[in-house]
C-alpha cells in the first residue's frame, strides 16, 4: 500500500497534465509579460530592448493615470457597496421565511455573461427608449440624461450594472457565513437580553469579520482588473471618460499594436493587484479579532 501510494511514475502521470497546463498557460505568460514590458515591440517585427523606458512612459502618461483613477474609483464604490450587501444579508439571516428563495433570486445576474448584461444595460440606458429614461419621463423629468454619452455620468452609469451583477454573490457569501454562526451563541445573547441590533453589531458582524476581509480583497482586486462589461458597453469612451486600466492595456496592445507598452501596463496591473491583496490583509490582520469560547 505504502509503495503503491507513493509510486513516482503514477504521481507524475496524475499531476503533470494539470500542472503543465497551469505552468505553461499561467505562470510562463506572467514571466513573459514582465519581459515584454522591457521591450519595444509591435507584435510582428523584432523586439528591441529598452530597459525601463515603458515604465517611465507609463508614469508620465496622463491617459494611463486617468484609467487607473477610474479603476480605483470602482474599487472604492465596490467596497462601499459591500456594507449594503452585508446589511441585506443580515436581514436575510434573521429567520426570514423564504430566505432561500430570495438568496437564489439575488444570485441570478451573477450567473449571466457580462456581455449579455452589458447589452441589456445598453438598452436600459437607451436615451429615448430605455426603461430608465422612460421612468424619468413618466415622473415628469423634462431633460433626461444621455447616460452613456455624457462624460460626467458615464463612469457611474457603467459602475451601476457591475454592482448590480455582483450583489447576489456577496449577499450569498455573507448569508452563508452568518448561517454558520453556532446558534447557541445567538441564543445566549438573546437570553442576556440583547436585541437584534446589538446581536448584529456585537456578535454576528465580529464573527464574520474574516469573511468580510476576504470579500474586501475580492472586491478591490476584482475592480482593479475589471474589463468585460466596460469594454462592451462603452469601450472606455466617450473620449476615455470610462476607461479603466485593463481596457487601456487592451487598447494599447491589441488595437495600437504597442505590445511592449501593453505588457508594461499588464505587469503593473498584476503588481497592483498583488500589492492590494497584501496591503488589505496586512492592515486588517493586526486588529484583534474577537474571541468567543
Amino acid at each position: 500500500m505504502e509503495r503503491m501510494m507513493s509510486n513516482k511514475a503514477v504521481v507524475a502521470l496524475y499531476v503533470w497534465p494539470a500542472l503543465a497546463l497551469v505552468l505553461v498557460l499561467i505562470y510562463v505568460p506572467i514571466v513573459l509579460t514582465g519581459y515584454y514590458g522591457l521591450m519595444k515591440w509591435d507584435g510582428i517585427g523584432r523586439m528591441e530592448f529598452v530597459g525601463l523606458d515603458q515604465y517611465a512612459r507609463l508614469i508620465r502618461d496622463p491617459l494611463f493615470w486617468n484609467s487607473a483613477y477610474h479603476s480605483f474609483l470602482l474599487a472604492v464604490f465596490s467596497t462601499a457597496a459591500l456594507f449594503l450587501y452585508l446589511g441585506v444579508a443580515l436581514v436575510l439571516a434573521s429567520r426570514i421565511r423564504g430566505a432561500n428563495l430570495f438568496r437564489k433570486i439575488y444570485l441570478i445576474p451573477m450567473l449571466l455573461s457580462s456581455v449579455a448584461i452589458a447589452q441589456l444595460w445598453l438598452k436600459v440606458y437607451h436615451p429615448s427608449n430605455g426603461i430608465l429614461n422612460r421612468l424619468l419621463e413618466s415622473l415628469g423629468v423634462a431633460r433626461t440624461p444621455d447616460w452613456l454619452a455624457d462624460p460626467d455620468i458615464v463612469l457611474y452609469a457603467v459602475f451601476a450594472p457591475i454592482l448590480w451583477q455582483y450583489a447576489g454573490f456577496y449577499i450569498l457569501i455573507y448569508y452563508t457565513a452568518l448561517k454558520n454562526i453556532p446558534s447557541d451563541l445567538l441564543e445566549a445573547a438573546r437570553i442576556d437580553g440583547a436585541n437584534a441590533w446589538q446581536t448584529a453589531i456585537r456578535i454576528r458582524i465580529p464573527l464574520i469579520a474574516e469573511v468580510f476581509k476576504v470579500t474586501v480583497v475580492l472586491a478591490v482586486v476584482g475592480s482593479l482588473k475589471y474589463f468585460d462589461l466596460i469594454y462592451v458597453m462603452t469601450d472606455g469612451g466617450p473620449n476615455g471618460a470610462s476607461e479603466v486600466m485593463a481596457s487601456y492595456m487592451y487598447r494599447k496592445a491589441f488595437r495600437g499594436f504597442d505590445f511592449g507598452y501593453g505588457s508594461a501596463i499588464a505587469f503593473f496591473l498584476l503588481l497592483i493587484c498583488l500589492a492590494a491583496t497584501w496591503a488589505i490583509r496586512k492592515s486588517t490582520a493586526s486588529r484583534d479579532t474577537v474571541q468567543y469560547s
Partner: protein
Amino acid sequence: MVRLAARSLFYLILTAVAVLQLLPLVWLLLFSLKNSQEVFELPPFALPTEPRWENYWKVWTKGNIRVYFLNSVWITAASVVLTVLLAGLATFALTRMRWKLRPLALGLFMVGMMIPVHSTLIPLFGLFSRIGLKDNPLSLVLSYTAFNLPVTVLIFLGFYMRLPRELEESAVIDGCSVHRLFFRIIFPITASVTTTAAIINMIYNWNEFIFVNTFISSDHWKTLTVGIQNFTGQYMRDWGAIGATLMISILPVLVAYFALSEKIVEGMTAGSIKG
C-alpha cells in the same frame, strides 16, 4: 407591534432587492417578444398583443447565432470534461499520495487563482500565434482548462481529503491498481462534488469573453459572447431580435440554475476566491 413593523420592513427590503435584481431581466424577456412598433409605442412593461416568437426564429435561422451557440456548447463541454478529469487526477495525487514536492505543486495551483487573466493575455496571444493555434478553438479549450484548474482543484480538495483511508487499503488488498482505484472507486464516489465543479466550470466557460475576443477572429469559431456582440451591432434598431438573441444566450445557464440551483450556490461559494 414594533416587532411586526420591523418584520414587515425586513420583507419589504428583501422584496425590493429581489425586484431590483429581476426587473431588467423581466424587461428583457418582454421586449424579446415584441415587434419594433410595440417596443417603441407600448409602455416598457406592457405585454405584447401576442408574443412574437418569430423574433427567436428569425435570429436562430438567419445570421450566425446558431453557429455561435453550437460552438459555445462544444467548447464549453470539451473544456469542462478536460478540466474535471485533470483536476480529479491532480487532486487525487495531491491529497492521497505521498511525494516530496506536494506542497509546492499545491501552492502553484492555489496561487494560480490570484493571477489576473489580463496580465497573461499578450504572451498567450503570442504563444498561440506561434504554434498555429490562433483562430483555433483549441486555444480556448486549453486556456479555459488551465485557468479553471486551480479553482476546480480547490473545490475537490476538501472532499478528497476526507475520503476514508480504508478505501485505499481495501483496494490494495483486493489487488487493485492505482488507476482502477481512481477511476472505479474514487471518481464515482466523488460524483457529487464533481457535479458541483462541472456546473461551475460550465458557467465560467459559457460566459467567457476576453479569450474569445482576443484569440478568435473568424465567425465560424466564435462563441456566443463575442457573437452576440457583433450581432447586436448589426441589428441596432431591431430590439426584438436583440432581445431574442440575449435570451437565447442566457437560457442554458438559467435552465441549469433552475435544475441544479443548490449545486451552483455551493460551487459559487466554494469558488469565491477565484479571480
